[in-house]
């Protein structure tokens, strides 16, 4: 019996070698795509900012300084070295506020996506895999949710509940789960038809195990891409809600809150609304790029070193 040669030449898997391989692989993956690199770096920096906000920011974000109100950023005429990005209408340091704002914006973005994703994933898997009556009921619920535009939904709910960080996360999560449910269900429907699912059934694997081991990992990539996209849109959404007075409430600092509070100053002290706006844009850009990169990374096809 002849044995085939493996497609690629085999590497020795000694332990050190493996570690080195591992790092090399990830490094390669990271730098393979330029946008991915940018995305990862931006996102990484922003997470660091969020975590180390108290250390990194020069001032407490809510310290007011009447002597230095509406100070422009340092490179403009009238700028002060003490306030690199200037100050807002109450003399609070913009830089510090931007740094602290990272925390809440990420918290809202990530947590609400986790909430939505978890609910959506669960129902999407069940509906897609089992189909039939459950699927029908769930899809009607999804239809009903989708029929109500999300800002309207959130607005109405937040309008009747009292807004707060937790409520916000919860409500956004509750609104967005349908997106995931629909996406996951659609994916499951097509994955279900793939032969490896059939194969798993022929060897007697139980349905819950098939869902977890075979379906879930294959739904993951598109799920993650949508999730990252959704983290980005949630950060923007928080800004819009702030505009309507339903966002994260001060004194908690969030970019959305800053952006919307600063809108009245766009014509006079443009930096007050522009810097948080830029922060949002950069973050969104970073996260979306990261999502694209993640999709590549999560594809096992990319996990081999190509010669």
């Amino acid at each position, binding site marked *: 019996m002849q044995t085939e040669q493996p497609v690629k030449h085999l590497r020795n898997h000694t332990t050190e070698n493996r570690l080195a391989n591992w790092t090399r692989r990830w490094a390669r993956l990271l730098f393979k795509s330029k946008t991915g690199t940018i995305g990862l770096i931006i996102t990484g920096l922003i997470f660091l900012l969020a975590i180390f906000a108290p250390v990194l920011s020069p001032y407490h974000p809510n310290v007011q300084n009447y002597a230095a109100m509406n100070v422009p950023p340092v490179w403009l005429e009238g700028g002060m070295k003490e306030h690199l990005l200037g100050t807002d209408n109450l003399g609070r340091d913009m830089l510090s506020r931007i740094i602290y704002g990272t925390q809440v914006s990420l918290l809202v973005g990530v947590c609400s996506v986790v909430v939505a994703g978890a609910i959506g994933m669960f129902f999407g898997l069940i509906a897609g895999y089992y189909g039939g009556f459950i699927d029908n009921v769930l899809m009607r619920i999804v239809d009903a949710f989708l029929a109500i*535009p999300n800002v309207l939904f959130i607005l109405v709910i937040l309008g009747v509940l009292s807004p707060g960080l937790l409520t916000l996360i919860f409500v956004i999560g509750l609104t967005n789960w349908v997106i995931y449910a629909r996406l996951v269900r659609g994916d499951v429907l097509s994955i279900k038809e793939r032969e490896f699912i059939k194969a798993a059934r022929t060897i007697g694997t139980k349905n819950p195990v098939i869902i977890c081991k075979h379906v879930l990992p294959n739904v993951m990539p598109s799920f993650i891409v949508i999730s990252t996209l959704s983290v980005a849109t949630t950060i923007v959404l928080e800004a819009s809600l702030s505009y309507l007075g339903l966002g994260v409430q001060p004194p908690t600092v969030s970019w959305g809150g800053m952006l919307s509070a600063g809108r009245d100053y766009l014509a006079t002290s443009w930096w007050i609304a522009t810097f948080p706006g830029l922060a949002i844009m950069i973050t969104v850009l970073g996260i979306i790029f990261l999502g694209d990169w993640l999709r590549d990374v999560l594809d096992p096809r990319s996990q081999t070193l190509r010669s």
Partner: protein
Amino acid sequence: MRKYLLWRVLQIIPVLFLISIFVFALLYLAGDPVALMLPEDATQEQVDALRESLGLDQPFYIQYLSFVGDVIQGDFGYSYRYSQPALPIVLERLPATFELAFASMIVAVLIAVPLGILSATKRNTALDVFISGASVLGKAMPNFWLGIMLILMLAITYPFFPVSGSGSVAHLILPAITLGTGCAAEMTRVLRSSMLETLNQDYVRTAVSKGVKNFFVVYKHAFRNALIPFITITFLQVSTLVSGALITEVVFSWPGLGQLLIQAINGRDMAVVQATVFIVAFIVIVVNLMADVLYRVLDPRIQFD
């Protein structure tokens, strides 16, 4: 076709039922509307008197049954704020919001179609990256921010357009751009990816091998096929448009549903909130239905019955 339509219309019923549950529940989540109708320093007697007169002291199920009965007859109750039935108030605002949504849609299509096709045909070039980046930015810009910036630039610094209000086509342009830009971002992405997909299809290769001009290959053979998902997503944007309109209308003081709703929510004018949610949901459902039907009309592969 008629049967398919009938089937789709029947499917709407459970959805509307679920929505009506939500809409009704709102009233209970909302708490007490009375406090908001009175001045800041109203007395308890005032509060009680008003509450009683509004029938808010009735038990739950009576209110529920009457709600369902009323909604079927198109009666969402009285607006506290306007002292009028809620439904006509909402319907009165629909045309303005439609007008804005329609104009925004046109803006979005005008932006998305050329950009989407361009970035697909010039895939991985600097132009493509630029367009992708721009569409990400389009998503990252909150509506209100863009709206205010547009006012500052195109209505005040360079007064090409009126700042706000309604009444003429000129009034429509800035809000439509504001609202359309966000949708365009999404639509560009969808069009790009569906164009990429169709450009890779065998029938495009067939067309090229027949000697069809490049332009026609792209705009006739590929675009016509990419159009199907594109139109679907375009219609589905209605939901996004309504979301965006809520905010854009406030910025430009456009007298549509958005302003009505936000004021109704702030004033706990629950009848108006309920009617708005219901009507908007209904419209979204109908539009989705239209998208579905259009999809079938455009794609000869899909059978009608």
